[in-house]
């Protein structure tokens, strides 16, 4: 058997991503360097190992020869290597991802949330640009922008529990001009909030519920609410303020429910230098990541807008969770048996966005369950309504779909940024013929225009 053993490693990272990225292996030439006559390419989900991980993902190839191996990173250029494998050889292919001096953000380096070349000046080897012509002009523009950025705030950002009104009022509250000055976002930090790790560029916090708390948080999503103690520790919304700017973060505390590995965590990190895309003239940007062995790669592809890659990781992510269930019933593998309904929601979005048929699929009926059983997840009802809008055969169906979307909006702002985008597009589709759709669009636009669209979870830069 001729094979490549893909060993992908992220320097300084803890643990590993069982389902981390998509690798493409393509036959380029035979052993003599002659171009391959027959097309052969495969795309496989790969494990990404941390600093001390061992092992690799075997990829059987059809023949000896030259192969191009590309690992698709969520936000950075693909890492590409060309290798030569002999007949019946299992060739280890070591793919070392860029290290970062911000060792506590190693997985964020993998996802591309930390800048591409962390050991280099942002304009290159030297501050003096020697490139000429058009590219020289562009690099001078970059250098000037870098040098003329407002200085990063000296103080560390403050973190507060944010009080967001329930339901539709929350949309209006958060989307209002001047919202950043609202006292609702200037309270105390959550109970037990950790001290940050930080350096001149980033500030980071890691705060994750225990398994017991996680299970209760899932119950809370069923609409009974949380005990005051849990709510104080794990508020739905956090406000992170720095230098006059406020980011509002929807936190998926219940992500793991009662099932979390020790190296998995929710991390918040603040880029003190580079701006949010929502406010490019001001330094500072908050990101939230869910470092889950099986879902982190998929979530980051989703945040980066690469649905095609997220789709390729969905089935292996589910299969790794519950291989027996996957065989017996993908439906139950995705809902109920997985960690929590937030995981199922992420999976649901991908299935809906990737659907090629409006015919009922195996996962359609549990969209109803997700919406009905977890009113604490606005995404459930919104996704159900969007899917039903796609399946609508007549005006009555379309109006019923709108009712679902509207119910979802009434439940509050979604956990996932992509849900909000899908809602906007669906309402736009309906707004010509369904009463109330235009108004619903206007309700959400104040928030959707402030969402950081480069992240999987909802992070809003307040006005």
């Amino acid at each position, binding site marked *: 058997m001729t094979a490549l053993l893909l060993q992908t490693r992220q320097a300084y990272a803890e643990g590993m991503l069982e389902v981390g990225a998509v690798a493409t292996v393509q036959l*380029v*030439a035979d052993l003599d*360097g*002659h*171009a*391959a006559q027959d*097309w052969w*390419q495969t795309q496989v989900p790969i494990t990404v190992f941390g600093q001390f991980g061992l092992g690799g993902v075997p990829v059987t190839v059809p023949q000896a020869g030259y192969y191009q191996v590309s690992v698709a990173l969520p936000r950075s*250029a693909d890492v590409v290597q*060309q290798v030569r494998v002999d007949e019946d050889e299992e060739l280890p292919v070591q793919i070392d991802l860029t290290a970062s001096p911000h060792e506590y953000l190693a997985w964020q380096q993998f996802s591309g949330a930390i800048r*591409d070349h962390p050991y280099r000046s942002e304009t*290159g*080897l030297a501050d003096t*640009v*020697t*490139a000429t*012509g*058009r*590219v020289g*002009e*562009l*690099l001078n*523009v*970059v250098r000037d*922008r870098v040098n003329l950025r407002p200085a990063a705030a000296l103080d560390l950002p403050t973190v507060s529990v944010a009080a967001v009104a329930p339901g539709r009022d929350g949309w209006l509250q958060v*989307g209002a*001009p001047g919202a950043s000055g609202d006292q609702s976002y200037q309270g105390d930090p959550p109970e037990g909030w950790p001290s940050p790790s930080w350096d001149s560029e980033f500030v980071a916090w890691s705060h994750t519920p225990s398994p017991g708390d996680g299970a209760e948080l899932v119950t809370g999503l069923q609409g009974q609410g949380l005990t005051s103690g849990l709510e104080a520790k794990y508020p739905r919304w956090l406000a992170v303020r720095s230098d006059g700017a406020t980011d509002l973060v929807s936190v998926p505390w219940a992500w793991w429910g009662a099932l979390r590995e020790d190296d998995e965590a929710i991390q918040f990190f603040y880029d003190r230098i580079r701006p949010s895309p*929502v406010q*490019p003239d001001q330094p500072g940007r908050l990101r939230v990541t869910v470092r889950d062995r099986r879902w982190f790669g998929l979530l980051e*592809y989703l945040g980066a*807008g690469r*649905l*095609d890659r997220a789709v390729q990781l969905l089935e292996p992510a589910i299969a790794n969770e519950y291989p027996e269930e996957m065989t017996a019933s993908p439906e139950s593998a995705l809902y109920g048996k997985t960690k929590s309904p937030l995981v199922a929601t992420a999976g649901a*979005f991908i299935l809906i966005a990737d*659907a*090629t*048929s*409006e*015919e009922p699929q195996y996962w359609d009926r549990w969209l109803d369950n997700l919406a009905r059983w977890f009113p604490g997840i606005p995404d459930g009802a919104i996704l159900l309504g969007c899917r039903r809008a*796609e399946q609508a055969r007549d005006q009555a169906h379309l109006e019923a779909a709108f009712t679902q979307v509207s119910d979802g909006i009434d439940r509050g702002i979604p956990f996932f*940024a*992509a849900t909000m*985008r*899908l809602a*906007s*597009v*669906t*309402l*736009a*589709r309906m707004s*010509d013929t369904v009463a109330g759709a235009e108004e619903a669009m206007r309700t959400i*636009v*104040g928030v*959707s*225009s402030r*969402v*950081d*669209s*480069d992240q999987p979870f909802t992070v809003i830069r307040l*006005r």
Partner: protein
Amino acid sequence: MTLVYGDPGIDPGTHVLIVGVGAYPFGRGTTQPSLAAGGLSQLTSPPVSARAVADWFISSFRNRDCPLASVELLISEAAPTRYQPPRPAGAGPVIPSTPTLENVRAAAKDWGDRLQSNKDNMAAFYFCGHGVSVGQQAALLLADFGKPGSDYDGAIDLNLLTGTMRNSPAIRQVYLLDCCRTRADGLYEYEPMIGSRIRSQASNRGHDESPQQFVLFPTLDGEEAFGAPGSRSAFATALLEALDFAAADRRTGTWRTSTTNLHDAIDQLISFRVPPQLRGRSKPSAVESTRFFFNDIDPPTVARSYVTVSDVSTWNDDATIECEPKGRPGQPLSDQAADHDDGTYCRFELDEGCWSFKGRLTPPHEVAELEQVVAAPVAYITLEVKR
């Protein structure tokens, strides 16, 4: 006049709507700059880019399942100029209509109406001009943007466009948005919804297949990144190279491009022309990145090979790249950076096989040599700058 190509006998077919906005009558430097549009500079790339894209569709686009059926073209420029369609033979030149909201709506109505005829029609939309985007809102600014009394109407709201088109029976839809991004994004501070609907369409799809939309909205940050004055935009150049060869593969047995390949190829080709800090200010949404085949190409006979260096700040007009075949006879080749003033690359058309690459930069910078097998249709080689 907006229809510059039409073949009514084609069904299903690919129907294209192209909008290039260079002149903004209410923008900067005019006699009547308005409050909303006064910050918009006049652009010279969009008319050139829109014409180049129209030329490509009419003369080069091929899709065996869905041939070209129509092309609508609207252009605004300082001095309106005729457009000569490359075919059919004998086609006369036309002066494209100005892309005001009214004219774009009329063209979009015709475009959308043609798409109704068959679910297997494919829709293609290309816009080049100023664009604004904040968060998940985006608008493409038309020629009459900022007109007093309807200040924010002269624009295409992107959500309204793609949302409405999900009601179209045409399953496959491609939106290529070649936007110059400037500080005009600040308009969203005053008005969260900018732009208008350019087409109304009730849902009448008539079949069970979900719409497959692909939206590419790379948006290069600033006029400098957008394109050199009077030339095709960086995105348009990358797009046409991707369509011609770089995004094609033969996984189906014949050479075809796909939407996700287009995304990857354009990303790579733009990377030679625009520094990363000026790229990707907004990302395509995962809602609209479905994969389907777009166009067919003839089997490539060479590997178009782009060679660059790992640190582009060391690049200048004196850079030279050389390559020679390994293990077989052949002449060494050389290319000069000065011949590619739009980016940091040298380019070769190589026969497939193993090649050795080396480069020369202005001292003290040096690059390491590299051997690599190149294969059609495209190869990307990066030589490491020694430290």
